């Protein structure tokens, strides 16, 4: 297991190095004009300089903060609304179709509308991120609550549990695997939306940095920004994996394998 993991790590490192080397060759022989694709070394310089002198660091932190805050809002709203709808047949009947109708509307389609109506203030940006990122969690919570092992309701019944206890001690815990998978998906959505919102609103952030670098034909700065977005995506995903592995450690190895977290 650990040997396989070590080999996997070395292999993925080798692929990354090979990729950078190819990138280097492409730029060396100018297969793509440098205005579009900077050499790796120049990108690295732009990265170090931007981070050290401040503007790129500031933009990165702003994006990270928006992404995480928006995502947290989405988690609370998604699981909260999901718990309400998923445990109330009445709400399910009335809200279910509306939720299904809303779901396919990408949050980015909503951004122009929101800008037109209220402009993109900081609060608005967070709302857009939360709105776009809450759907997977909302639907996962509803689904998780609806697929609770029926026998557990008998267990709850024999113990005379009230509704609130059933939801908190049986319903939500058994929905946790679904919710965690959705939280991971939502992280990516939150990062994309944070960037798009910054592009459209001009608020400080990586989105704005990317747009600005592109307008200045500064491909090195552009790529430095993209690199940081990639790192954010990778790191948050890795943290989710660690969290999932811990929170779902009760699963049998077989189930964990199937869920892809072993």
């Amino acid at each position, binding site marked *: 297991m650990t040997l396989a993991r070590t080999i996997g790590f070395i292999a993925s490192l080798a692929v990354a190095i090979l990729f950078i080397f190819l990138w280097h060759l492409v730029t060396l022989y100018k297969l793509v004009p440098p205005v579009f694709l900077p050499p790796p070394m120049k990108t690295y310089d732009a990265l170090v300089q931007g981070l050290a002198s401040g503007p790129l660091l500031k933009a990165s932190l702003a994006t990270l903060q928006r992404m995480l805050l928006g995502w947290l809002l989405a988690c609370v709203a998604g699981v909260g609304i999901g718990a309400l709808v998923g445990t109330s047949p009445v709400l399910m009947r009335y809200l279910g179709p509306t939720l299904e109708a809303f779901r396919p509307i990408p949050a980015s389609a909503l951004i122009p509308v929101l800008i037109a109506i209220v402009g993109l203030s900081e609060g608005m940006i967070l709302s857009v991120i939360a709105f776009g990122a809450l759907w997977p969690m909302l639907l996962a919570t509803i689904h998780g609550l609806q697929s609770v*092992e029926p*026998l*557990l309701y*008998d*267990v709850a*019944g*024999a*113990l*005379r*549990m009230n509704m609130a*206890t059933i939801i908190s*001690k*049986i319903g939500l*815990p*058994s929905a*946790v695997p679904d919710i965690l998978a959705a939280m991971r998906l939502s992280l990516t959505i939150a990062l994309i939306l944070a960037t798009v919102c910054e592009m459209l609103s001009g608020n400080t952030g990586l989105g704005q940095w990317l747009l600005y670098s592109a307008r200045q034909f500064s491909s090195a700065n552009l790529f430095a920004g993209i690199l940081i977005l990639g790192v954010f995506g990778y790191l948050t995903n890795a943290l989710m994996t660690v969290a999932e592995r811990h929170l779902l*450690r*009760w*699963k*049998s190895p077989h*189930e964990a394998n199937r869920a892809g977290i072993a």
Partner: protein
Amino acid sequence: MTQIGQTAQMRLEGVSLSYGAKLVLSDINLDIARGEIVSVVGPSGCGKTTSLRVLAGLVSPSGGRIVYEGTPLSGPRRDIAIVFQDYGKALLPWRTAYQNISLALETMGTDKSERPDRIHALLKLIGLGNHADKFPSQMSGGMQQRLQIARALAQEPSVLLMDEPFGALDAMTRQTLQDELLTLSTKTGATIYFVTHDLEEAVYLSDRVVGLLPNPGRVGRIFDVNLPRPRDQLTTRESPEFLHLRHELYQFVKGAEQ
């Protein structure tokens, strides 16, 4: 022997139950005395599980009633505990053995400071003393069923309803758990209503065995088991009385099946 009336802790009075148009239980009358071990046998689908769910208060009879400790039963009670056949589904997989027992105490509002001692005592009683922090997925079938029994005992029940609790276990584990159950019954004095399809198990454990007939489920015959206690896996099972009862039960179920 149980006399109709006075000594019954629990009585089924003309209990019938329909699911839709299907009559599942029909006019069941049965008195169960405090501390008694009653087994229920009968062909598959004859209503054994349904009768247990009615006694648990999980479903109300369509006709007749259950009288528990002198008053009509209107729903589940915490002093009536259930052990389900499918232990894999009846335990909370995300909770450890310790936490699964804790579920019962949390729900009953047992004082937080009292819980650890009681949980550890129950784990020890049921032979899981060293497995407090294991999740169900890390335990054998026998251990999981022990855990479910411990959780039921945490309710300090006066009645234990068990639905084919040992049916999915291997023969050796089953016999061990049968003996542990008999010990528990002596220790706690709990009344036990035991559904099984294993006729020898029914005779071995019980004071009486209720034979159900199918379509609709009704009491066909009640067998008194006058084997001495404590019972022993070898001598009890070899005694002529045991073999005779087993024979009669077999013929009853065989007859009920066609």
